[in-house]
Each structure stands twice: as structure tokens, then as C-alpha cells.
């Protein structure tokens, strides 16, 4: 319901406060100067037909009129046959280091130029309900983050840490070096990490399973096992992180003689964390592959 109302709010014509910018460095400078979010469309106008429907809307004169709330708009058009002007622009836009796996892709950056949301590819935009809703969803998450952080400014201690963490969760962020200021703020407000947010953002995918494959004796296995137990109890982990922890526990117990039952239980925990997800289904399949 909130999503829908936000979309209406965002997309019905209001004051024209969305503004197009020429290139990424200029956009970033202005976003920082004027404290504005920046929405970037990565497209390929002369080679990628999937970009066309999105570009048709994006380049229409009334696109910025449909967006309310102050924001900056930039189309990074990756042309195959650029003219001189496009080539100059392309050079400037190389300042944008965001990794794009497909085109078209929408990326929303906060006023500090940090990625605050992404919708990848025509299938991703379609799954989000089309361009308008995809954009609406990105802004909604950022707005929720900002609301939470505004509230956090008035709080102290655990409550403050919780609001900052919730804000990061809204935009699926927190792990990269660009979020160090927020992690420091959480560490200051919750020095013992009683909420578990810091452990969540410091979680390194595959780290434990890599160590397990190299560990050779029970002493090493025990150390890793204890670390995984602590992580498994962290309520802040996302479902996929939790599943990865249980998968690592399975890898550990599978290797550790006499722990077969725990290996099986780890798979069950993994499935329970999110049965319909890919790792959830994989854990069920992996269990079937075990000896009865």
C-alpha cells in the first residue's frame, strides 16, 4: 500500500524538480553540493533494443515532470558507434565505476554517490512492474533509509545503532568501504555489537568454507565451528547470509568424522531459513545426496 501511494506521489505530475545532468562527474559534484540523489540509466541506444522502451520514456520531455521530489537524472549511453561528442562524454563517464552486468540497468545513488539500489536488465525492470514502478521502488527504499537515519540522529546507544542498521538494510547496503562512516557510527552507538549489525556487514561470503577446505585437523575445525555458531545466532543476518553460514557448517561437519548428524541438521536449518530460495532448494537437494 505504501509502495503504491509512493509511486503515485512520485509519478503524478508535480513541480518539475527532477533535473537532467550531462555526465557522471558533474552529476556527482552536484549531488554532493545540493544533497540530491542521482538516478542513472545505463543504456545502449545504438545496439541494445531492450534499452529502447526505457529510453523512449526516459528521453521524453515530460519524464522529469513525472518525478516529484528533487533528484538528478543521467543517462549513461554506452554507444557502439559514438560520434566525437559522445566519445568525449564516454570518457567523462568512465569516472563511474559501478559494475553493470547487463543493459538497461537503473542505479540510484545517494547524495554521497553511494549506490543505494539497482534494477538490472529488461527482465529485472519488468519484474519490478515496469520502469515507473522500478524507479518508484528505488526511491522508496532510499526515502525509507533517510527517514530512519533522520530518526537515528535524535537517538543514542542501541536505538541509534538499530535505526542506522535498519536504514542500511532498506537499501541492501553496509558491507563496502563506502559505508565505513555508518559502520563507525554503529560501533560507537553499540560498541559490543549486541545487535549484530557489525558482524552482519563484516560477513565475508565464502570465507569460512574456504578455510574449512584448507583446515586439516580437529583443532582448526573447532575454531571455525565456534565462529559459525556465533554467526548462526546473529539475528541480523539476512536469510541468504544465514543459509551460507549453515552451508559452511555442513561443509565443516561433512569433513569432521563423527559429525554426520550435525551435517544433516545444518542442511535442514539452511532449508528452513528460506525454503523457496535457490539455496533453500539446494540444501534440500544436497540432503538427498547424503547416504541414508
Amino acid at each position, binding site marked *: 500500500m505504501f509502495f503504491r501511494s509512493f509511486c503515485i506521489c512520485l509519478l503524478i505530475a508535480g513541480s518539475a524538480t527532477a533535473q537532467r545532468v550531462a555526465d557522471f562527474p558533474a552529476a556527482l559534484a552536484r549531488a554532493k553540493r545540493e544533497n540530491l540523489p542521482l538516478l542513472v540509466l545505463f543504456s*545502449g541506444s*545504438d*545496439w*541494445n*533494443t*531492450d534499452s*529502447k522502451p526505457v529510453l523512449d520514456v526516459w528521453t521524453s520531455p515530460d519524464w522529469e515532470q513525472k518525478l516529484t521530489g528533487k533528484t538528478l537524472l543521467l543517462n549513461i549511453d*554506452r*554507444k*557502439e558507434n559514438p560520434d566525437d561528442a559522445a566519445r568525449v562524454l564516454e570518457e567523462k563517464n568512465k569516472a563511474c565505476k559501478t559494475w*553493470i*552486468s*547487463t*543493459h538497461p540497468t537503473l542505479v540510484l545513488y545517494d547524495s554521497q554517490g553511494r549506490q543505494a539500489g539497482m534494477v*538490472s*536488465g*529488461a*527482465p529485472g525492470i519488468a519484474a519490478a512492474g515496469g520502469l515507473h514502478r522500478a524507479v518508484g521502488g528505488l526511491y522508496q527504499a532510499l526515502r525509507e533509509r533517510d527517514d530512519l537515519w533522520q530518526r537515528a540522529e535524535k537517538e543514542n546507544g542501541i536505538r541509534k545503532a538499530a535505526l542506522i542498521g535498519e536504514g542500511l538494510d532498506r537499501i541492501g547496503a553496509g558491507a563496502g568501504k563506502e559505508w565505513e562512516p555508518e559502520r563507525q557510527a554503529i560501533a560507537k552507538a553499540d560498541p559490543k555489537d549486541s545487535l549484530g549489525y557489525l558482524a552482519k556487514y563484516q560477513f565475508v561470503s*565464502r570465507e569460512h*568454507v*574456504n578455510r*574449512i*577446505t584448507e583446515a586439516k585437523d580437529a583443532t582448526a575445525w573447532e575454531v571455525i565451528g565456534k565462529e559459525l555458531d556465533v554467526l548462526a545466532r546473529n539475528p541480523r543476518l539476512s536469510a541468504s547470509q544465514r*543459509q*551460507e553460514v549453515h*552451508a*559452511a557448517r*555442513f*561443509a*565443516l561437519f*561433512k*569433513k569432521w568424522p563423527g559429525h554426520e548428524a550435525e551435517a544433516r541438521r545444518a542442511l535442514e536449518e539452511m532449508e528452513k531459513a528460506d525454503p523457496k530460495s*535457490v*539455496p533453500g*532448494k*539446494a*540444501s534440500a*537437494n*544436497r540432503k538427498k*545426496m547424503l547416504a541414508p
Partner: protein
Amino acid sequence: MFPTRTVCLAAACFFTAGISGFAAIGKLPGNDAELEAPVGDQAAALELLQGELERVAGPAVRSLEKSSDGSRFLRELFSSYQLFGDFMLSGPLPSDLGKSLRALFEIWKEDRDGLRDVRDRSTAVATALVFGRSGWEPENAFARYRFYRDSRKQGKLHASFEELRPWEKRFVTGAAHNGAWAGPGGWNDDSLVWLRDHVKLPAKDYEGACWQAPYHLNNMFGDSIHGADYYTPFSGMTHAERVRLVGGVCGSLSHFGANSANANGIPAFTMGEPAHCAYAVRPERGKWIASYTLSWKRGLHLPPELAASWSHLILLEDSLADEDAWRKSAVHRFQALALEKSNPTLAEAAYRASLEACPLNFTAWMSAAEFFAAHSGNDPERWEGFQSGVLKSLAKYPECAWSVISTIQDKAFATMDQERKLGFILAFHRAISPYAGPSMWEFEKALEAQAAAFSPDVTAQLGLFEKIAAIHMASPAWLAPSIAWAQEKFSGDPALVKQYFAALGRAFADGSGAGASDGFRNAIRAAILGAEKSGDMEAFQAIGKAGAKFTGAKPLDDLPPFSGKLLSSGGFVTISSTSTWDQPESHWGLLEPQGGAFHTDADVRPWVIVRLGKMGDLSGIVLHDSTGDGYNGRRQVPIKVSVSENGTEWKEVFRSEKQAKSWRIPLDGKATRVQYVKCERDNETKDHFHLQAIHAYGRPLQ
């Protein structure tokens, strides 16, 4: 071209008696003037193409004639220069053209009208030619054609696909090895659909598409990719999707990269390298990029008749740059093949016409070589003339030139005395010496074959080597592999080693009257610098190891390592310049635990670039400067260290203004997918630059 021969046989019918139906057409050309008929006359061309099809795939034609559909298909094919011309003249033909014919029939059955559109016709032809490969079933050709036809019509392919010629599309429609890779549920048409819709990039970006899939030796359950359980738990999705989700190692990643390009209509294919899998992408006409590559030793996952090696691929591309000329050349080649038995004189004229039309047509050269080997008799001048023709056309592609010459060498040598053999071999080396060629190749094998054919006596072979080395002395490409070959062949035999040193000493004597060991050292130095200049890692390693025993480098102080493996070991060094104080024989040790040395000339911003022995995620780099606590330590600062995946785009990871005997640079998480490390002095001072160790540690990604 090779000289003509005055053999005159009567013109004969294309086909032997007793063949009925479609085969009973066509007359062979009877004189030089008639050779030109099919070039300008479509009807004559159709007859010629039909004759060639009959010659190489007669049983397949007979088989199709038996059904009414098949007969109708053949009638249409043989009357359409557009379709038949594209089918027969779009690059080298597959080894089983009959299978391709059946594949084209399968497509025609399902989409006869569609083939009238030039864009879909070229897709159909390319698909049919791909299905001539071993293991590709013609019955599946339509499904592959349909994928590209429908994807194009729906605008789901990269726009450049519209412009591709049929021969170019053969590098697209061969995507995913027709599902033959990675077993059932592996790379199949479903994966292509997923990749088409989820990995849409500007063409050149497919060079890095492999990295969309993470490099993981073990899956999240700890199951190794070398076992059967790695992907099994991840069902209900395409293989492409699960490779991106679960990860893989070089094979999965390279297939992801190549197949994502192919699925979007961009030419690409995978390649085997020693203990590694890489891939190649063609972002634009005439330009192939090797991606995730670690070695020039590549086995292309392509049928050999299309491109047996990287050099052959580049030659094919260059030869087809003028497609009209290539087609004309192919037409004359078909004439020559048809005339070989009945009229060798005219066949030779047809080969000449073929190679004059397109001197880079490798297929024509190979056929001509076979013909020549069968018809040239005992006149050594004819053999020399033939080689001269090959070298005139193909010297810039030394590997390809050797491919042709190696087929005639034994027969040629049977007509020659030792002096003439020597001249024949040295002519080859003189011709290729100025050209590095499109890529490195197994030059040592060519030397070995030449030496073996020259004489069974190793002393004579050593004499041959000395003359070859003298030719290549100034050649950065061929000196190093020549010495690497000789080192392997002659230095292990105590009876020969002195002669070997003496030979090198004579070849590389600096005129100062110094002895053979100095000459040998000169040779090693020149060879190492040559290997560095030409990027020949294998020769650098082989000669570097041999040269290490001549170094006066002192053992390094204890340098505590970072975690992981010493990724620099087995790598390769290039420096901005050499100098009087530089000892190239010490370069190899720079990357190894014992240490080594390099010493540039006085330069502004001098540098050393290391290509790691293994690509990897770095945990840290250790640099050693034995002069770090002395006066000359100032030469190294400010020192800047950068890393790179491809050797062109660099990321600075360290800078220091302070002199030091060693710098330890921790890099955990800051230097992923690194193949190159660059150290440089980062100011405008003109001075020398030297280090004794560059050790990079981390987790290998291969």
C-alpha cells in the same frame, strides 16, 4: 608462385560414369581462359559448386535424392546462387560437408520461405556449416537456427549481428558446443536464452563477462568443482544461471563469457591453455581479443579446418577481409581439385589463379601443397619455387607458412643435397625473421622437424642451429625460442655441451676476443631480452632458469611471505630499458624465492612490469632493494606499485617516499584478479632503477 609444368591431359567430365540425377552435369574447363567462366557467370559457378559438393559429399546428395522433399531441396539449392554460393563459399568447408548439407535441409524443411531473407539465410548457412562438426546432429540444426532467427527478429541480439556475413556467423551459431559441454543440463539452448536476456553488453565488454561468475573452487557446501557434486544441488535453473550463482573455475567462467557473447550474436569461442581454459571475443570485424588468457599456448575449441591456432584464426580473418577475392580463390581451388587427376597442368594453373586471387587463402595453399607434393617430381628448383611462393604470401604468419611448408618438406628434401637443404631451411628463417606473427607458436617443434629432416647427425644439427641463430640474432620474436630449443636439445649432452657453447659463442661473440662462455652469456642475455620484448613467457622461463647459474646475485635476506602461494613464481618480467649494469640472466630470479636483479638505464619514470606466473587475488607484495639503506636507494623512491588484470588498466595500490631495503605491501581484498604488477619511480628525475625481488603472494585464480 610456383613454376608451371608441361603436362597435358585431355579435359574430362566432372564426374565419373554411372552417377545419375543431379550429378550428371558440368564440364571441366579445358584451358586457362575457361578457368574464368564460373567467376563471372552464376550458372557456370553453380555447376562448379555442384561438382565440388558431389566430389566431397556425394553419398549425402544421393541420400537426399531418395525423398521427394530432398529432391526438391536439392533442386532449389542448385538453382540459387545466393543460397548455394553462401553454403559453399563462406570460409573453409567443414570436414563432413554431407552433414552440413543435411543440416541445411533440416532448416529448409522448416523455414523454406525464411531463407529468402538474406539475414536469415546467412544464419541458416552458418548454422548448417557448424553442424558439419563432429558430434553435432543435423536434426538439431533447426532449433539452433530458430534461436538466432527469432532472437534477431525480436531485436534481442546485439545490433552488429545484422551485419555479419555467413562465415562470421559460424563463430556465433557454434555457441555452447551444442550442449555437449558440461553434460546433460549443461550449456544448452536454454542457457543461451538466459544469457541473451541477462547479459547484454557492448561487444567489447564481453571480454570481461566471464567475471560475472565468481571464481570458486568449492561450492557453498564445500564440494569441489573437480567432483560430481559441485552443481548437482542447484537444480531448476539453466546452467548459465547456476554458473553465475554458484561460480566455477576457469572452464565454467570462460564458457560463461564466450556463451554470453554468442547468445547475443557476438562471435566468440573458448580455448584450452595449459591447465587453463580461456576464451576469445571478436568485438568488431578484424579484431579478436583473447580473454582470461594466461598463455599463448592455445588450443582453439574450433574445428581445425576453420582455425587450427590463433595465427590461423588471424590469417582467416585477414584473408576474408576481401570476401569477393576469397570466393574467387575458392572457386579456382574447386576447379583445381576437380582437374587434379585429369589435367594436372590446368589444375596447377587453377591453383595459381586461386592464390593470385587471394594470396592469404590458407585452405588453397594447403590444397596446392598436397597437389604439388604429388606432382612435382625431382626438380629441387620447383620445390624451392613453391616455398618461395608460400613465404612471399605468408611470411607475416610464420606458423601458417610452416604449416604449409612442413607438408612438403620431406618430399622436397628427397630431391636435395645437404647444401640445398640448408638453403631451403635458412630461406624460411630469413623470410620470417622480421615478423613476430599474430602470436607465439610452437616454433621449437618446427626447428626440431627441420633439424631432423636436415640430418640425423647432431653435430650437423648444431651447425644448422648456429646459422639459424645468426639469422635471428636481431629478431626479438625468434631468437629466444631458438636458444630455448637449442638449450634443451644440446646442453644436456656432455659430449655436445662444449660445442654448443662454442657455437653460441661464435654467433654472439662481441668482437672483444672474449671466450665462448662470454659468448654464451651474450646469447643468454640477448635471448632473455628478446623473450621479454616479444612476451614469450615460456622462452623467458626456459632461458631464465638456464641463465640463473651464471648470475652473481647474492641470496636474499629473509623476506617473510604473505599468505597464499608465491604467484610471481614462473612469471615474466619486462623493464623500461636495459643498461650496462643490467644482467638479464638475473631477471628470472626476481620473481623466485632466491631473488635476482634488474637495472634500468637512467630514465624518467623507469619501470618494471611483472606478469605473474599465476593470476590471482593478492594477499600482498614484497619488494627488495639491496641498496635501500645506501646512497643508491634514493633511485627507487618515490616508488609506486600498481596492479592490473590485463596489463593496460592499472590500479595504484602502494606509494612510498621512504627508502627501504624491503617494502611489505599488504593487499587483502584490495587487489583481486591480478595478472600484472608494475613498480615504478614516480617522479621526473632521470636516473636508474633497480630491485632484487618482486614477490607477489595470494590465491591463484586458475
